[in-house]
């Protein structure tokens, strides 16, 4: 059940059998959610963190006029809100973008991990730092990149993140988002996204169709994106 989570962690560090068991023991309820379901409401007291087992979720914030900014996407194997363990009431919400299966990890279980497994605790600290690195990369996109480069960056990032958890097929992967979802990730409108996807397709770089991304030219796409995967901390090192 937590195999993708373990793949994500083990791409960066060693997880001992005892630590793996501690993670397994921390899993509480498992829930199946439909698309567009809110699992974490901003401002509500959290007593558990959400581990994504299958599907795609996002962190987001809304403005009063209905505009939404997605601030990070989550793929299978991610904790969507490990930081709610220390923050308790979050400043953002978390929702599903596709049908999802999630495991709820009670905060009291996470507290036991922090008391008994210092290395695993550091590894989880590392993963929240990695979330912060992803947020920084998105800030750069939203503030400085062109529309073409923003979407190219997103497709590159998700390819790498899904590859780590075994969810790519070469250079293509399932990515069942609407153009509206994409627009909310990259700070554009659905029309602008549509126009930009056309340009990426016509340049022979990538196709996004029927909920699937197919990259035709990885080097070209990475060049348009100025994509440097350093912010995904792919090297294995011991925390």
């Amino acid at each position, binding site marked *: 059940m937590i195999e993708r989570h373990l793949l994500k962690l083990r791409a960066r560090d060693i997880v001992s059998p005892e630590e793996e068991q501690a993670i397994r023991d921390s899993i509480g309820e498992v829930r199946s959610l439909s698309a567009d379901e809110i699992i974490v409401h901003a401002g509500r007291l959290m007593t558990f963190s959400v581990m994504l087992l299958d599907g795609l979720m996002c962190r987001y914030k809304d403005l009063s006029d209905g505009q939404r900014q997605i601030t990070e996407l989550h793929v299978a194997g991610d904790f969507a809100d490990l930081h709610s363990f220390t923050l308790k009431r979050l400043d953002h919400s978390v929702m599903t973008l596709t049908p999802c299966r999630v495991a709820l990890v009670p905060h009291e279980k996470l507290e036991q991990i922090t008391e008994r497994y210092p290395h695993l605790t550091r590894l989880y600290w590392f993963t929240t730092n990695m979330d912060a690195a992803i947020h920084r990369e998105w800030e750069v996109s939203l503030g400085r990149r062109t*529309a073409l480069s923003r979407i190219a960056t997103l497709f590159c990032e998700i390819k790498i993140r899904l590859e780590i958890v075994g969810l790519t097929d070469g250079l293509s992967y399932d990515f069942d988002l609407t*153009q*509206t979802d994409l627009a909310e990730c990259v700070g554009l*409108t*659905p*029309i602008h996204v*549509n126009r930009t996807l056309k*340009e990426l397709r016509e340049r022979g770089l990538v196709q996004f169709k029927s909920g699937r991304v197919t990259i035709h030219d990885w080097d070209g796409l990475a060049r348009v994106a100025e994509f440097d995967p350093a912010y995904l901390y792919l090297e294995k090192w011991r925390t």
Partner: protein
Amino acid sequence: MARYYLHINNGGGYSEDLEGQELPDLDAARAAAIEGVRSMLSEEARQGQLDLSGKIEIADDGGNILLVVPFCDAVELRRSE
């Protein structure tokens, strides 16, 4: 709510909207078109050129064009005399 398809026709060619958006009515679809045009034009302005000759075609599920929104409807241009 109904599904509206916002096809783009401008200097970059024709971009068909295969997915569409669920919107309350045609007014909301027009507003989405205007917002989309402004988003594209803002990117063009950053690169120093504005092409206002395009249009958005708003179609329904049956492919009927309900409304055409010229890009120039999305902005008010002012310049000093």
